[in-house]
């Protein structure tokens, strides 16, 4: 019985009915990953340990969690004890973490099985997965096309049906944009909802972990487990967790959805607009109401992000110096030379570019003009959202201005071209708001994503709206043919 393209729910039923054992499921998952290794979605496999765990689960023969015995893939940015964690960078290519990230630990404690670590943009800096030291990931829908980024390996592994779900992280769209480009569902939770402990930091005030899966329901299952207070992360919210599965399947009659007038959707590809209008109509038939809203400072999102994120990255990545862990250059002179050579040989071009921008923005004489100014504008953006949410329940936008593109076709001459991929996703990271991307049909034979942004801590509302959409459409059931792989 094939396990490819199965959801968590479907695999759970197979396990419960003893149609398959956890060990068989884990072996089949590894076989699929091996058969599809040309996709390049994994950096490191966890074969022996995952099979051992599956055997133990079979022996225990009790199911106290929906995730028990379910194979998952983890973005290679989460530290996993004893299992290599590279962040897709040469500088961490030999790093074996001494501990496991809280988000992964929670999923593993719920019985899920980590089958491997997924490829990504180096240190999560990119929107196409083309900055990985371990090479490009192919989009399962079309060979030679990007899966999006930075969680491109996770998105491709789910879209190709190797695993039912995977973890990702989102600093400016890194869960939602690859989910959109690969035709799957991905949610970035409210900042503080999921512990960042053990996540290798890129931009600490923007990073947030979340799931990518084949449906909103499966995302709710994973997020239920990943969420919760963690005393090891000072930004982790100490709030009571709600069961998100109980929140989905609620009627959406009267739901007020905001359309942002400043996003000028009329400038987008006509097919992108058509998909958006179709989804709007579907929501209207389900009883939702649309309201035009204004976010007057939203045009500042991209420059604000590209001041704050590099500044935080330049500070966070100063720890990689070739001394305590990671790559150390050979033939170095004094200590300073060791730092410079190890970092220069260990980091790729995009990471260096962002470190330099951040160093500049934080340096004496420029701090107020760039970093502080960006944080002030960030407050204006957050205030705009707060005002808008006084009269609406959620905001709807396309996830990305376009669909997946060919390797090397964007950003090679001007990096800003690629930065604009995140035009619609960045603002929710700046404001700390939850947002989900769901597939809503194809544009030029490639999947397109629809984004729903929720108010602070209202994951229940966006997951419900996404689930209702999926109960009344079949876009999330579309699968790539995989004939090219």
């Amino acid at each position: 019985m094939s396990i490819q393209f199965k959801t968590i729910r479907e695999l759970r039923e197979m396990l419960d009915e003893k149609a398959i054992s956890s060990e068989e499921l884990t072996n089949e998952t590894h076989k699929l990953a091996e058969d599809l290794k040309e996709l390049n979605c994994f950096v490191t496999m966890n074969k022996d340990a995952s099979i051992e765990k599956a055997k133990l689960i079979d022996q225990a023969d009790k199911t106290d969690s929906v995730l028990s015995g379910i194979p998952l893939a983890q973005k290679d940015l989460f530290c996993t004890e004893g299992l290599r964690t590279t962040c897709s960078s040469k500088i961490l290519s030999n790093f074996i973490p001494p501990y496991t990230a809280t988000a992964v630990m929670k999923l593993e404690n719920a019985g899920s099985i980590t089958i491997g670590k997924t490829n990504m943009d180096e240190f999560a800096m990119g929107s196409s997965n083309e900055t990985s030291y371990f090479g490009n990931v192919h989009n399962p829908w079309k060979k030679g096309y990007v899966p999006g980024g930075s969680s491109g390996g996770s998105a491709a592994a789910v879209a190709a049906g190797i695993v039912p779900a995977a973890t990702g992280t989102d600093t400016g769209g890194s869960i939602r944009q690859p989910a959109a480009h690969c035709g799957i569902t991905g949610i970035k939770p409210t900042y503080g909802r999921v512990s960042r402990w053990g996540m290798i930091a890129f931009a600490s005030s923007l990073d947030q972990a979340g799931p990518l899966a084949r449906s909103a329901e499966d995302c709710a299952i994973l997020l239920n487990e990943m969420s919760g207070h963690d005393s090891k992360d000072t930004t982790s919210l100490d709030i009571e967790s709600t069961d998100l599965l109980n929140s989905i399947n609620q009627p959406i009659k009267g739901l007020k959805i905001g359309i942002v007038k400043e996003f000028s959707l009329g400038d987008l590809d006509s097919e992108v607009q058509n998909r958006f209008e179709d989804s709007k109509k579907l929501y209207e038939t389900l009883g939702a109401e649309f309201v035009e809203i204004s976010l007057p400072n939203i045009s500042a999102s991209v420059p604000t992000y590209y001041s704050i994120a590099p500044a935080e990255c330049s500070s966070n990545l100063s720890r990689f110096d070739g001394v305590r862990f990671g790559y150390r250059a050979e033939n170095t002179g004094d200590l300073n030379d060791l730092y410079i050579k190890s970092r220069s040989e260990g980091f790729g071009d995009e990471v260096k570019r962002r470190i330099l921008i951040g160093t500049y923005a934080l340096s004496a004489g420029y701090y107020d003009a760039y970093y502080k100014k960006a944080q002030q504008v960030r407050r204006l953006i957050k205030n705009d959202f707060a005002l808008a949410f006084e009269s609406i329940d959620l905001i709807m936008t396309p996830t990305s201005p376009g669909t997946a593109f060919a390797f090397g076709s964007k950003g090679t001459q001007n990096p800003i071209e690629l930065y604009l991929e995140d035009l619609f996703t960045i603002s929710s990271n700046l404001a700390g708001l939850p947002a989900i991307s769901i597939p809503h049909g194809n544009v030029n034979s490639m999947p397109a994503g629809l984004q729903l942004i929720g108010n602070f801590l209202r994951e229940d509302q966006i997951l419900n709206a996404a689930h209702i959409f999926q109960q009344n459409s079949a876009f999330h059931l579309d699968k790539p043919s995989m004939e090219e792989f």
Partner: protein
Amino acid sequence: MDQETVRTICYLARLQIDEDKAQKIENELETIIEMIGGLQAFNTENIQPLYSPLEKTAFMHEDIEKSDNQKEKFLQNAAASNEDYFLVPRVVE
């Protein structure tokens, strides 16, 4: 952004840029800085910076003494170490 500024930033970040890529990186940095410069058009008079979306004070936890020596584990990832320390080139003559 002139070459001298780029050299200073590179030194502050402890990064070296290959000669053949220097001009390209200089141009890219210039383009990005120009884009960020667009923020000056936004009026932020009397607006406090928002350094974290949560705006909450870090919580305090009890100061409990714990003996959790994992020295051996941590030293394993170092490129050079002895049984007690990370090793680096000599810094004091």
